[in-house]
């Protein structure tokens, strides 16, 4: 069941410049693991050493933040799109 994962600009150097990658998975966590299995250089940019998503990396299933769903265990189907978005913030 291929699921589309949209890759943001800063992570494309690690996906062979692809803006979207298709992975087979039943959950969002499985999709992300399969994504980094396909593109190993991506791993350290998505996950901290403890295996959790880095604090500034947001993962959305369609329009929902997976933190407010079932996190890694959130079910995903082929009609879904997973979007990775690093946070944007700053100030004086």
């Amino acid at each position, binding site marked *: 069941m291929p699921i589309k994962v*949209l890759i*943001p*600009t*800063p992570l494309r*150097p690690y996906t062979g410049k692809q*803006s*979207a990658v298709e992975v087979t998975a039943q959950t969002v966590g499985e999709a992300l693991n399969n994504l980094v299995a396909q593109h190993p250089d991506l791993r350290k*940019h998505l996950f901290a050493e403890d295996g959790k998503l*880095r604090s*500034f990396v*947001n993962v*959305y299933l369609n*329009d929902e*933040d997976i933190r407010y769903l079932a996190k890694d265990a959130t079910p995903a189907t082929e009609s879904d*799109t997973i*979007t990775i*978005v*690093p*946070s*944007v*913030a*700053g*100030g*004086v």
Partner: protein
Amino acid sequence: MALRIQKKLFELLRLHGEETYPHECCGVLVGEFDEADGRVVRSAVKCGNTRTDSPENRYHISPAELVRIQREAALAGHDIVGFYHSHPDCAAEASSTDLAEAHWTGCSYVITSVENRKAVVTNSFLLRGTEEAKHFDDKVIEVY
């Protein structure tokens, strides 16, 4: 490797800083990367500043808004090429907070200083390196 932007879009992002003064404004620059690794802005998307606890010196764009903008950009064959925000009554220079909170390597971060509700200087900084060793490079803005 300059940031190229139409005058009307350049004025729009500067005006946004005046509108939200004394709070920081923020938004997303959508466009294309050209062959010379430059960036051409095709649209500037105004965003809300979610840092309602300290809007005069902090900004944050809702990830949900970024997801929507990224998806719409992709449908138009475009990319997110950068972001903009304002520095009310402060120089248009990237602060340590700006660098610490910047994670879109290869994208431009445009900063406008706003003094007494008047946009003054607008600078562009290109985020380079990796998360562990990142820095901003000053870049020219070509307004056309």
